[in-house]
């Protein structure tokens, strides 16, 4: 697979380490009243769809960026790639 890195262009997937569901970005607020339940979901319940999936990939043998890669798990088509820090920063603003 080739992953089109937003800063570096297409890179071989073997330069990356995958961590799965990009939902890991959305760490719950530990002060929330239902924090225990939300952390349980955050840590243990992951989507694993056959189809379009947002995933976290780490450019471990590259620039050490975490990326959010939107990938079709059936065809391996890569629909979108963003810097995870951008995705996370945007989410912070919208909160």
């Amino acid at each position: 697979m080739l992953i089109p890195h937003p800063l570096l262009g297409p890179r071989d997937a073997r330069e990356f380490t995958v961590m799965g569901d990009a939902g890991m970005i959305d760490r719950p607020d530990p002060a929330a009243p239902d924090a225990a339940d939300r952390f349980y979901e955050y840590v243990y319940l992951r989507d694993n769809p056959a189809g379009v999936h947002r995933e976290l990939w780490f450019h471990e043998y590259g620039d050490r960026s975490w990326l959010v890669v939107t990938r079709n798990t059936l065809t391996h088509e890569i629909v979108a790639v963003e810097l995870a820090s951008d995705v996370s920063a945007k989410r912070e603003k919208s909160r």
Partner: protein
Amino acid sequence: MTRLDGGLIDRSKTLDFSFDGKPFRGHPGDTLASALLASDVRLVGRSFKYHRPRGVYSAGSEEPNALVELGAGARKQPNSRATTVELFAGLEAASQNRWPSLRFDAMAVNDLLAPFLTAGFYYKTFMWPAAFWEKLYEPAIRRAAGLGRLSMLPDPDRYEKGYLHCDLLVVGGGPSGLSAALAAARTGAKVILADEDFRLGGRLLAETACLRDVGTLDWISNLENEFESLPNLRVMRRTTVFGVFDHGIYGAVERVSDHMPAREGPVRQALWQISAKQAILAAGATERPIAFADNDRPGIMLGGAVRAYANRWAACPGKRIAVFTNNDDGHRTALDLIAKGVDIAAVVDVRPEAAALGDYRLVAGGVVSGTRGRMGLSAIEVVSGSRKERIECDVLAVSGGWNPNVHLASNHRGRPAWDEAVQAFLPPLDGPAGLTAAGAASGRFSTSDALLSGARTALGALDSLGIRAAMPDLPDAEGRRSVPAPFFHVPGKRRAWVDFQNDVTVKDIKLAHSENMRSVEHLKRYTTLGMATDQGRTANVTGLAIMAELGGQSIPETGTTIFRPPYTPVNLSVLGGGDTGEHFRPRRLTPTHRWAREQGAVFIEAGQWMRAQYFPQPGESHWRETVDREARAVRRSVGICDVTTLGKIDVQGSDAGEYLNRIYANMIQTLKPGRVRYGLMLREDGFAFDDGTCARLSDDHFIVTTTTANAGTVYRHMEFARQCLWPELDVQLISTTDAWAQITIAGPNSRELLTRLVDGFDLSNEAFPFMACSELSVCGGLRARLFRISFSGELAYELAVPARYGRALMARLMEAGQDLGVTPYGTEALGVLRIEKGHAAGAEFNGQTSPAMLGMDKLVSVKKDSIGALMSRRAGLADERRRLVGLQPVDPAASVIPGAHLFGAGREQTLATDEGWITSACYSPHVGSMIGLGFLENGDARLGEAVVAANPLEGQTVSLKVVPIHFVDPEGGRLRG
């Protein structure tokens, strides 16, 4: 010798080779198969299951029968297809799957047992008693079946991996591939042309009268000259593109020196990863047989193969040749052979309307109903209408039409589509993006169509890249479009082979069908049709057609199985690409590695690192003796140890303190510059992740250490937290593990030794107490960092200098500490010292332990949030009652074995009564016996109690006393002194 005139062999040179120990001769340009056929060798192997005599069947990589063992000793290569092996002087080949000899094979008795060995026999016959399957039946079947044997020796050859990038990859160097490469390369685009053969041309080399105005060979050689002059075109002969992977990546194997007598090439084979923006599948087509009774005798061959041997290799496989066909190709075979002066016995054409195209006997509307000849064909039985006759011949050329080589196009699950008009499966429309088929691979079988479609497809592919190409001048070529009659097998009671390599007959397919194996996927697995080294290249379509007929379905309704890579077998050794032994993965050496080697150190792998395990001295006969000495030296005077491999992460930024507060379970923000704190990291699920030290050099500058094993994962985790969780924090990370050489100086004399190296730095307890850190200079101006931390429990320091000074620092410490008896120590003594001091390490941080188990639950701050803090307090983990304890044998001579499980004294030993396990153990020279650390149920409340350690693997039980985890200096006076 049966050599004809002409052919593409160099008769001026002779190559000597051997087959089954007998000497033979061939010429450059020959394959092993053509040289054997030219030497009148017909019997070359035995079949997989019935051990039937078999001969060369094809002239290409689809060969099901002519599999041989090539070479000798460690270089022996089983299951090599004689049809693709390029002949060289000194080649040694041997037949396989026979004993004691090829002509007399004891296992041929299987052929008489055939009624018991039908499809799925092993599912039915060997059912009882059940225990016999694993011990008797399966090993016996495996011995009886099978093809070549491995040498069982390490592979002595070299392999390499490489990466190529191009605009257009052309797979196949036949007429369509050549015209595609020509059209594309003339634009200046980067083009790769790969072909599995050692000579470009494909079927052009095997046929006559393909081109009209120009000699075929002249056209090819002009083309090759032009190719030579184009720097943007890379022609790769002997290169098989074996698979299509994601995003335009193609796997290819180049056989660099397989064809050289001493494999004098730089490597034997190379694995290429080709990234192509566009690709053309010009892989041609494979001829399909027609099944009929006893159609597997040596001498029965594919018609196109007979033509190839006659035309390209001037090798005639027999003296009197008959043809069996359902299309015009069979007639072409007869004409070509007649032109070479070969006797044609008859052409049997299933089509009643067929007409002879030349001067030969034609049996129109006839079929071959049987054959004769034990070790090779001697006659065929022909039925036409009510007439039955016997025709003497030693070769039967069978033509059942051509199957486009769609394999690569359906590597991504796309199913080939049956095209009634050409009676063949064509590449799927939903094949891999960027891959388009041309020529015979797309069902365009005439030379003229192939040439045109190759060039046109190239134009289209380049156009999609914004490159304009022009149609090249192509020679006038034959345009025959022969569609085979839909005729796949001759009905009959006797066995008719469909898959030669796996001995699958029409009967087996019928049996599978009658046992309700109706899906093609079930048919394949039940009968093994299309498995093994040829993957049914000559068998699949015929098998499907027969199945369709049985089920009263059409071929498209029946469908096909999926084509997966590789297209032809790939050696595992080339997939490894030389990454074996020492080169299996990168090896990291510490800055003092060479120094340690000079001291005679014994090394151990720690992840990718090579670390000194211990330093044997003259007179020491056992590693324990060495390790005891090293550990004692640290406790009594001073020892030095390279700890560079521990992960070091530089953390800087105005929010560095806040960031680390969230990373570590314990409080970090309150740490004062110039001080170090122990740090515990949890995973978000609340389990212990890693530990280390956190040193604050200044307000916005920290240095974090990790364990050697987790250096990579901790760094990844910290980057995840920085980028994904808290991008708003002003903090930067960089791994500096390799940048700094770090050496531990431990023992009561460590301060004394260090004083001799520092440049006017006050090391007194008041100025530089336990858990202090500082930047300083040593050895007359070398910048360094000093940390007063201790893993051994002794007064100890870790001194870091730029990595390139690591070795010099080690030497300086040895020199300066000579009178103190300074002793280098390795990872073994390091482990002994830490177990004696009760420090948790990798065995305790195994990913399944909670902070409470490690006795660190109080460390998890409740005044702040940190990763894993909340989950560490959830039910399950908060109730956890196992605690880290020290363990000491009641009998000092007894062994403490890590991994042994702990039980209450006198209690039953079951899973239900299991109370914990031993994590780490060593011989402690300080205690004078073995000691251990382990997790024990309510361990903190059971000090002094005796428990039993059970090691059922070795039938051991040992009585242990539960003791505090600190075997040395429990008050910590030594490290603070």
